[in-house]
């Protein structure tokens, strides 16, 4: 490790390759941002060159033809409700499964794990039929309630809760705390790292979801960012290049900003999933 400061050819090649990789990864983002700042004709004639003149007319166009604030609001309502509900309810269930002995607990957990094996596509049609019959199509809770809790998250949190020493919980029980207080005062503060993982995965999943809103949120006033901007780009093909690039930048920007603020948690969130 001491030699790492010195220049060596292998190290130089490694950094060169890493840099090349970074350029390949960043180029599409750069392309998107660059074109969002150009005038329409320039996008069509020289899409790969830097803008000769920077303009915000694309962004203005998006805000004029779409109610962007409404789209952001809808996406936020969905993502925040799902994230908060799912993180809270999943951690409650995970605590019960890991630390509260009740008859049938092991069977229940085994059954939960078995349900994880069923691919999601199987539920697509019957759930739509059910939600259609309930009259929930076009309403946010059609997406929120089925995602209010998930086995996947229960499993992730349970693994973490199981590592908390029983003495800590027993001590609180001897002090007369009931299970709700133990959960709120002892468990929740200790499981923050895994809650961050679960919250991030839920939020990204919901924010980036396309099929769910496509099926259930069919009215323009309930469109999410993804759906609104998709409808926008498919309605007039080839004509509104400026607005398309501006709108793509607008979908991507909030998430990328949050990502750079919480980058370690994001990466860990995905790594944790695989490490059981």
């Amino acid at each position, binding site marked *: 490790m001491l030699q790492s400061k010195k220049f060596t050819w292998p190290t130089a090649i490694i950094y060169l390759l890493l840099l090349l990789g970074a350029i390949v*990864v960043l180029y599409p983002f750069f392309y998107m941002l660059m074109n969002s700042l150009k005038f329409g004709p320039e996008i069509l004639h020289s899409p790969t060159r830097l803008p000769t003149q920077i303009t915000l007319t694309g962004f203005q166009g998006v805000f004029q033809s779409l109610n962007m604030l409404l789209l952001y609001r809808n996406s936020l309502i969905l993502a925040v409700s799902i994230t908060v509900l799912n993180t809270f309810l999943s951690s409650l269930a995970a605590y019960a499964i890991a630390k509260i002995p009740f008859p049938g607990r092991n069977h229940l*957990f*085994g059954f939960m794990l078995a349900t994880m094996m069923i691919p999601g596509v199987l539920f697509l049609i019957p759930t739509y039929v059910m939600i259609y019959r309930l009259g929930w199509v076009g309403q946010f809770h059609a997406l929120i309630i089925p995602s209010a809790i998930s086995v996947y998250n229960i499993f992730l949190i349970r693994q973490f809760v*199981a590592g908390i020493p029983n003495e800590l919980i027993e001590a609180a029980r001897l002090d007369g705390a009931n299970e709700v207080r133990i959960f709120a005062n002892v468990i929740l503060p200790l499981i923050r790292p895994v809650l961050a993982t679960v919250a991030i995965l839920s939020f990204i999943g919901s924010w980036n979801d396309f099929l769910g809103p496509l099926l259930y949120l069919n009215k323009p006033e309930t469109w999410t960012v993804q759906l609104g901007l998709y409808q926008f780009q498919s309605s007039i093909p080839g004509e509104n290049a400026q607005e398309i690039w501006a709108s793509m930048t607008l979908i991507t920007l909030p998430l990328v900003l949050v990502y750079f603020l919480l980058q370690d948690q994001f990466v860990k969130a995905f*790594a944790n999933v695989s490490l059981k």
Partner: protein
Amino acid sequence: MADTISIDRDTIPRQQQKSRRMWTRIRRGGWGYIFVFPWILVYLVFGLYPLLLSFYLTFFTYSFVTPEDYVFVGLGNWLRGFLDPLFWKGITNIFYNQVIFILVTNVIGLLTAFLLYKVTFAGRIFRTIYFMPVITSVVVLMVVGNYLTSPQGPIQSYMVQLGILDSPVFWKFTESLPMPVIALINSWKWFGVSTVIYLAGLYAVDPQFYEAAQIDGASGWQQFWSITIPQLRPQIFFLLVVNVINGLQMFTEVFTLGYDVFGGPQHQALTPVLYLYAQAFNNSNIGYASTLGLLLALVIALLTVIQFRLFPSDAR
């Protein structure tokens, strides 16, 4: 899994405390039921019921247009599904796509993980950059990817300049290229996950293996093939299983690329879920769409079981 849960440890209570303990146990158990109740409720309503409804619907022709018309067709939907060339076209398209996708993401993921493992300075910055596409939405990705690979896009114009391509083509509308193009765009999006997973795997390898190999005079390549790769088998297995499960359920990619719901004139971009969507919402044939969903779930389950069988149990 179930036997790893710790059992309540107060097994030798004093006689006089026994009944009191019983009470607190029941009370506590009660809280346990209350805490898992939301899952049970959501599962019964949005898991079990749709599952049963799905089976039920496969025996009928049913549509939203005329909801009162349930026509019993027996196993007709199942037979039709097994013999439907478009369903199997979707499956083969996905295979074509996933072979490229899995190969590219694994090779690039492994390579970048290896580079990041070797590096002591600025590794985090690169890792952060490589992971950026993972959090980007598929809609954005497909629109950007579509422009980059279009005849006017930079990739084709460079290829023409370099003489690889005679003239720009709409790859999207050729018969054999949509799936590789989607696989490459998706590889760009997802390789960061493989990188992070392989990186964690590399850090978990005991350095003594390498030291012993160096003493025995093994070259870098020999070490890579006989230590690194076998040690990373759990990660390889995990990525393979997850990719097959997710890949077969591809929808948003092809839908947002602007194909019709049958995946283009030659069905070159048809996926099973796109076909299911077409049957449900274009042909309003809910019974048949439901059958296709179950059939696809069977295909996925079968492939997962095969993968578990093929991999030795210590490598999962």
